[in-house]
């Protein structure tokens, strides 16, 4: 039992640094979010429980939880929450915060995929689906990647045949014309956000 139990310290930290974090205190622990999440059976903590843990000051347990990484962005929780909490956004915000602090679970597949996705789109302004897919398969190394890739060969081949996958994308693919402008916007936005949330860029 730490001294900070049920003190507002962590709640205030979440309010200051996490997207929609100021809404956490409004939860009344009804649990409708917990029962509405399609990936509910898989996570450690339900959103409502995460919110209670924040209020109880359990910083480490919250930020290292896998719960936020199970969000499929289905928005069921938001649609049903009787307090109209933007639960999806809070969970995304917590994930982002935990990730930026380096406290999110290491090797969490969605965390890795999400990072890759952003980097992929940020590079050329548009998503390169092939690189994203391959990048994802090869995230654990060449061997695992080949295995994964082979396992999913049928999927890729099907898409290729249906003209919905372009092997040539590996050499570039779609992109934004004003790439430097796009990059400047992202960089500036990141800079403002980090300043606002007190995070080191």
């Amino acid at each position, binding site marked *: 039992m730490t001294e900070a139990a049920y003190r507002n310290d962590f709640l205030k930290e979440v309010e200051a640094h996490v997207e929609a974090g100021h809404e956490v205190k409004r939860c009344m622990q009804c649990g409708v979010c917990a029962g509405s999440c399609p990936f509910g059976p898989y996570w450690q903590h339900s959103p409502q429980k995460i919110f209670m843990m924040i209020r109880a000051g359990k910083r480490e347990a919250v930020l290292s939880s896998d719960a936020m990484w199970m969000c499929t962005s289905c928005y069921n929780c938001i649609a049903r929450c*009787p307090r109209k909490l933007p639960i999806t956004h809070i969970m995304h915000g917590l994930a982002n915060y935990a990730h930026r602090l380096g406290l999110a679970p290491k090797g969490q597949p969605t965390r890795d995929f999400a990072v890759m996705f952003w980097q992929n789109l940020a590079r050329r302004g548009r998503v390169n689906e092939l690189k994203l897919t391959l990048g994802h398969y090869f995230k654990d190394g060449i061997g695992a990647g080949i295995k994964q890739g082979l396992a999913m060969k049928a999927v890729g081949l099907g898409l290729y045949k249906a003209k919905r996958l372009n092997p040539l994308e590996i050499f570039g693919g779609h992109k934004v014309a004003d790439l430097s402008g796009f990059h400047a916007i992202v960089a500036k936005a990141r800079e403002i956000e980090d300043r606002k949330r007190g995070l080191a860029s």
Partner: protein
Amino acid sequence: MTGNIATNSTLLVVGGGISGMTAALEAAECGKEVVLVEKLPTLGGRTAHLYRYFPKMCHPTCGLEINLRRLKGNRRVRVLTMTEVVAVDGERGDYRVTLKIAPRYVKDNCTACGDCAEAISSEIANVYEYGLARTKAAYLPHVMAYPQRYVLDPSIIGTAEAEQAKAACKVGAIDLGMAEETVQLNVGSVIWATGWRPYDAARIQPYGYGRYRNVITSLEFERLADPRGPTGGKLLRPSDGREAKNIAFIQCAGSRDENHLRHCSRICCMASLKQTQYVGEAYPDGSGKSTIYYIDIRAIDRFEDFYQNVQADPGVSFIKSKVASIVEDKDGNPVLHGVDTEGYHRYATTHDLVVLAVGMEPEANSIRLPDSILTDSSGFIENSADGGMFGAGAAASPLDVNRAVQSATAAALRAIQVIHKTAATESTA
């Protein structure tokens, strides 16, 4: 009845449910003249549909009988049914009220013998049974209806059926030419006892009311439990008429929910606790099972005793959870999905029947109140700007019957104060 029947020392009470009847009778028993108007063909309101009251498990119609007897014995209350207030002009102490009286097609001399109903075959949904049964289009609203007079449903007016009903009436009580009437009254004060309506359960989409036949409202469940109801008191589920033995009660169905009703409707926890006892009563062998899914059990003050008794009932279990969703299995059984938040326990539980403890929405939301009436964010009446009109009972706040009657009694005195002050001012002027 429709002449100049009121003066500015008269009170108008809008709504003939328990709050309106109470306000009218309490004022009349203080010697005041009262006009009591009711939109429906009978007095009695919501509580007349209930089987039992918590926490005594006594019968609402018992109180209704006493109030009707008070009414029959008191010449100071004039009752106008099928009547709505369409306008209130004037000011505190001197209102001019316009009433619209819908045609009943049956006159005061009806003896309630039932010959008209016998003579016709058209049926309509039985409003008293919340549509769980049908009734003839010439009908007595229910066994305790007051005035004890039949009503002809407008749907048969102009048909041969209506003529048959008319012909069957030996006392000539049916008047098919009856038309809507507009009446004006002078009154000194108005009490709005317009009550509540169940929140539209179909709007609580994850629970599938309207899509799943075995998801019903707490009000419908009252009718199932009532031996005078459509199933003779048997808890038969709507889809297949099978006895429902494993019943889920879902609290806060609409209440405490910013997507629906912001407020807590106060009565629903107690209503569900009460209804678990109907289940016990229906299955004396103990085979009935009730599960209450709740956020907080609001068994306030002495009601805590009742809660403790129900907790001790082996047939009742409690799960602290707002149910996330209901799906229907292939046999028409509702399956409840959610998480028990005390600790963390995911469930997918099959029940025979689901009862939604639907919240109270002010009926005033569906009528046009005078502009000077101030309501809260849910539509409950707070007061009137000129201090001459008052909300009473569930029109003013989501209240149980006991508190609604207190509220109505208080409203009666406030209205009397207005009349006495007006009289005092006039006599000194």
